[in-house]
């Protein structure tokens, strides 16, 4: 890179202000007077007019050039878009990128699909290739990745994940990767892998990868550099957020919640009145919809089927349950029960949307009018009656990735109990915008619908819902007035609609007893858009019926299907 100082930094003399020219001439005159007291440097003198004045103009221009050069070294100016020499600033920022290169890498998740349910091992040297870009496996712990067969127990402190039965004779596992990305990798893009594990049939991206070093403006890059250079730890709220942003650029929102925050219900107070250190890391990445075939065991006491749902990412919502391959189980005929598998670390609803949550699917045996079983059944090797169900669900692929990283020995903060979770979703069941328009105006409602959808889906701390954004979209779409925004929504405290205490009966082995022990989290239904920023903490904390449900601006997100957005035109006046 050749830095052409004169053409990029030094201005034309006519662009230098009169005040600067005068100031420079006077300063030069003073400097000369000290060394040459008899030299006539006054205006109208030969030396003054023919040498000193032109020299002063040149020196003033050079001074302005120096100020501009120093401005390019000031990342605050660069991040505000004040850049004089882009090639120089690009090279300059690369110094910081080299220093933090491993923290500005692109990040993503790949799905490895196999045709056999076995345990596979991916060596640390495994490479995943997307076109010209090569990615490494992200290793929260030492050693390679174990992709364990379906149902096998996982080990802590080891990079391992279970295969998931896709139901079509294939089995898959999602593995996080990092690397330098020059071309955007999008969800479902195919990849190559080396070395190739046995029985592997496909490798593809689970979600759009996030650029670690985004191909954005230099001002954005400088702003990111200023943020990352000063913080790189999980020790406090701000640095924790910066750590997540630089390590996992594909996260769309993150919110560390600490002891003392209203929505932190995992902390407790010791005899000295001092709260122990807890941090809940809420995060969100683009959810993925998948379908999985599960085998549910029949419990003849309760006349229901039960199975534990285990998915590759973090289970966030169940959309549909099918039996007999095609028939959907009515919503009233199945329930999802959430239970914490670690009542010490996170009990009841505090385990929701984290790797401490177990979700059990309980489906009624559907019978016809004559009482005959409608759901087809079979028997497993132990003679238990089973049914094959197909579950369509939404999952967040990044929650387990971040969780395993934050729990690794190198990252986990000393003295702080960290739990990674997905945000608590507010599911918007109906969203109707009433508007009026002037005669002759053509409304672009499709565009408004898309903007509203993108806006609400993208919300996450620190950005909370505001009617103003909806109104803006409607005005741009042609509306003259937004008369009202009618919303019906509800808070989903957990994936399930019921919660079981950790010390309750195991639903798999004793379903009928477990069903008597379930708790129902408080139902919060939001009747209008003003209620889309709920602030609620379980009032029964400490009592036998506590569920520890809590929601606030720090842990809320919104779920909205684009088809839910409707518009109603109201006549003007």
């Amino acid at each position, binding site marked *: 890179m050749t830095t052409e100082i004169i053409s990029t930094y030094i201005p034309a003399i006519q662009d230098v202000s*009169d005040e600067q*020219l*005068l100031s420079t*001439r006077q300063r030069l005159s003073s400097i000369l*007077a000290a060394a040459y007291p*008899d*030299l*006539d440097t*006054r*205006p*109208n*003198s*030969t*030396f*003054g*007019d023919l040498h000193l*004045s032109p020299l*002063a103009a040149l020196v003033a221009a050079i001074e302005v050039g120096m100020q501009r050069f120093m401005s390019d070294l000031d990342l605050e100016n660069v991040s505000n878009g004040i850049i004089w020499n882009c090639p120089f600033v690009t090279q300059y920022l690369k110094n910081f990128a080299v220093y933090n290169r491993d923290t500005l890498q692109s990040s993503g998740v790949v799905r490895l699909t196999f045709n056999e349910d076995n345990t596979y091992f991916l060596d640390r040297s495994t490479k995943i290739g997307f076109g010209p870009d090569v990615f490494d496996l992200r290793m929260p712990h030492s050693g390679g990745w174990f992709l364990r067969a379906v149902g096998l127990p996982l080990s802590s402190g080891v990079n391992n994940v279970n295969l998931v039965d896709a139901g079509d004779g294939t089995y898959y596992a999602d593995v996080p990767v990092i690397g330098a990305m020059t071309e955007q990798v999008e969800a479902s893009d195919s990849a190559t892998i080396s070395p190739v594990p046995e029985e592997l049939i496909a490798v593809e991206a689970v979600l759009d990868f996030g650029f670690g070093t985004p191909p954005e403006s230099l001002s954005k890059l400088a702003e990111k550099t200023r943020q990352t250079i000063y913080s790189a730890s999980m020790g406090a709220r701000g640095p924790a957020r910066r750590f997540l942003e630089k390590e996992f650029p594909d996260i769309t929102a993150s919110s560390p919640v600490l002891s003392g925050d209203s929505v932190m219900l995992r902390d407790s107070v010791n005899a000295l009145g001092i709260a122990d250190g807890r941090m809940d890391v809420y995060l969100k990445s683009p959810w993925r919809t998948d379908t999985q075939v599960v085998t549910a065991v029949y419990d003849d006491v309760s006349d229901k089927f039960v199975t534990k749902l285990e998915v590759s990412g973090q289970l966030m919502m169940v959309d549909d349950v099918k039996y007999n391959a095609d028939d959907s189980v009515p919503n009233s005929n199945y329930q999802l029960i959430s239970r914490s598998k670690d009542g010490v670390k996170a009990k009841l609803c505090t385990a929701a949307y984290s790797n401490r949550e177990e979700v059990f699917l309980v489906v009624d045996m559907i019978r016809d009018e004559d009482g005959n079983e409608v759901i087809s059944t079979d028997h497993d090797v132990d003679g238990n009656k089973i049914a094959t169900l197909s579950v369509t669900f939404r999952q967040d692929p990044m929650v387990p990735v971040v969780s395993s990283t934050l729990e690794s020995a190198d990252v986990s903060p000393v003295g702080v109990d960290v739990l990674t979770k997905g945000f608590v979703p507010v599911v918007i069941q109906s969203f109707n915008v009433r508007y009026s328009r002037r005669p002759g105006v053509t409304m672009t409602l499709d565009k408004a619908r898309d903007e509203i959808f993108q806006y609400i889906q993208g919300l996450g701390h620190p950005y909370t819902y505001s009617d103003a954004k909806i109104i803006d979209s409607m005005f741009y779409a042609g509306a003259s007035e937004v008369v009202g925004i009618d919303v019906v929504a509800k808070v989903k405290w957990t994936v399930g609609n019921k919660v079981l205490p950790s010390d309750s009966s195991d639903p798999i082995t004793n379903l009928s007893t477990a069903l008597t022990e379930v708790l129902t989290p408080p139902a919060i239904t939001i009747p209008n858009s003003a209620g889309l920023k709920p602030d609620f903490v379980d009032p029964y904390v400490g009592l036998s019926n506590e569920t520890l449900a809590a929601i606030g601006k720090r842990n809320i997100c919104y779920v909205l299907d684009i088809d839910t957005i409707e518009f109603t035109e109201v006549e003007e006046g």
Partner: protein
Amino acid sequence: MQGLKIDFTSDTGPFIDFNKSVSGKDASVQNALVNIGTDKGSDRVHPTRGTDLLSKGLRGELVGRQSARHASNFAALDTRIFCASQAPDDLPDAEKIQNVFMTVTNFGSRSLDLSVSFQMADGSTLGVTPTLTI
């Protein structure tokens, strides 16, 4: 103070004589003469430098002896004020211009003769009679 001498006596017009120098009150007076002939506003760094005398002559505003006298008086005042503003604090009184006097000695169809004299702060005077040909 010392500087290069400008020779105003040449028939071909003033020129810088690199072989000679001016110093003391001669340097100050030389600067003042340059100021009289400098068009006011031509120096963006010093907006008050120069006079309107030459530009008025070129624009035909010196329509008679009286207007020429007025213009020359203003030019003398402007020159006195500017030279005083540019004088260093430690400039000796002998080199500091206290007053400038300009008298029209001849008003021709193509030229204007002025008698210019300078009174220094120490009381001494110095007079020259330049010819401005317009």
